[in-house]
């Protein structure tokens, strides 16, 4: 039972990050459509802003059960999701340099987060 209580906030934050990483995708989609298809663009931007705001909810709920220092590093994963989404949904060509760069930045965020957990 104790273990479930520890896993629950982590899973919540992971799902929140996975969902929240969709926000920049919708925003970019809307910005791409902006001058030509105003209605569609507006819709996508509003969806993007909604996801941006609502993705904070799982984090806030999770913070009730766990410490920020444990959960904060996990938010760094959203950079990986965003790169994957932009490759898949926006058909962006991502080269090896970018993937390596994303790996470096995420590991940096992880390191800062986990070390603040230990200290």
């Amino acid at each position, binding site marked *: 039972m104790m273990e479930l209580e520890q896993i629950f906030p982590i899973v919540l934050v992971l799902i929140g990050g996975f969902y929240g990483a969709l926000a*920049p*995708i919708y*925003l*970019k989609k809307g*910005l791409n459509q*902006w001058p030509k298809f105003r209605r569609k663009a507006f819709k996508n931007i509003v969806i993007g802003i909604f996801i*941006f705001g609502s993705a904070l909810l799982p984090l806030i709920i999770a913070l009730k059960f766990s410490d920020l220092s444990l959960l904060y590093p996990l938010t*760094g994963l959203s*950079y990986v999701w*965003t*790169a994957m*989404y*932009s*490759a898949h949904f*926006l058909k*962006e*060509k*991502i*080269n*090896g*340099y*970018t993937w*390596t*760069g*994303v*790996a*470096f*930045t*995420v*590991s*940096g*965020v*992880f*390191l*800062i987060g986990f*070390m*603040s957990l230990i*200290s």
Partner: protein
Amino acid sequence: MMRDWKGQNSGSPIKLRIMGNSYQYTNFFRTNIFSIILVFISTILVSFAQVAFKMAWSDPVLSFSLLSKLLLGLGLYGIGAVLFLVALRNEKVSYLFPFLTLSYVWVILLSAYLFGEVISLAKILGVSLIFTGIFLIYVSGRSAI
């Protein structure tokens, strides 16, 4: 959007004819350098917003200073978000998004300066990993696209 021989995003070149001579220059507001500068400013604003939030929670609940700090934080956050959107107009999401990790760096520096938090070796290592990653992503914009 055009890429020059370096693979830089140089925007649409603007052609001018002045006194019989034709000139061509690129619109700075469409280059990836301009986008990166905007994201840079955006991350600084967002980290100041986080500091404002942090300061707000040490005030008594529902006091004027708490509310004003929260509002200041939200305002900074909003301006930062708008700047990021403007930057996103010209660039790929996968290119610009990792630059947002710079806010972690500013938060570490600001909290060391304002709250006297220790900058540990792990933090320095993490920051250098972030900088290496961002440099690689910047380079990726210059290489074959």
